[in-house]
């Protein structure tokens, strides 16, 4: 009979892979809707392409790949997150939130042809 630790390892491996697999599969087959992921809102319920969302997506993906690579390379402890990364992700989120606030709460601050973040 396998030991408790071995059984727990395989059990978690199966469950986690199952959760990730199902979510990824549903994302790929559009069963989880991604429509409008890169579109900013406007007070008049119109949407426009949003550079603020694009930069947030790029920085998030870069960080995720970088961090997972570090863990796989050295799975001894959680790798420290460099302060530069925290600053970049914090700044990126602030740009996204600021752009959203500007386009929804103060639409008059930008000119009418400017795309909403």
């Amino acid at each position: 009979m396998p030991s408790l630790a071995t059984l727990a390892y395989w059990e978690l491996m199966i469950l986690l892979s199952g959760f990730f697999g199902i979510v990824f599969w549903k994302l790929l087959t559009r069963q989880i809707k991604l429509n409008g992921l890169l579109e900013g809102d406007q007070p008049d319920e119109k949407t426009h392409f949003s550079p603020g969302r694009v930069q947030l997506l790029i920085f998030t993906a870069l960080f995720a790949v970088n961090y997972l690579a570090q863990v796989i390379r050295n799975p001894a402890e959680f790798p420290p997150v460099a302060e530069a990364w925290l600053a970049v992700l914090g700044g990126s989120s602030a740009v996204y939130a600021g752009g959203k606030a500007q386009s929804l709460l103060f639409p008059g601050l930008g000119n009418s042809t400017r795309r909403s973040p």
Partner: protein
Amino acid sequence: MNHPEKWVSVVAVVAVVLLFFAPGDHIAKLTLAIGYGALLLVFLFGAMVLTLMATGKIDLSELLEEESGGASMSRFQLLIFTFVISLSFFLLVAKSNEFPQVPAEVLTLLGISGTTYAVGKGIQAGSEKAAEEAEAEDENEKAPGKKGEK
């Protein structure tokens, strides 16, 4: 999966079998039985949730959707970070066989993601409230004109 009592019975039977046939003294047998029973129970719960998700009975179609329609970037970011941290956590526990120390920077990262989501929701709610107030003001301005026409 319609009869959870069946699965609980299976777990109980496995635990009892282990209790009788496992080597060692009574306490060791009991510890093993509880351990294997708990593992089996957790696996069955997880498998049940996975099956319901896969068959669509747990609806994930609006997992990333905002109330106003369209996918939410902050929800998507939170989903990615949750995957990354949970996968890292699993790999570290599997490798070192002990509970890893979560550094403050990782918590800060999850905080940034959660705060972005919360701020986004706040802005959305503020915008909707402002729109409602503007509509109410418009109606108030139109109302005296209508009275005058009469």
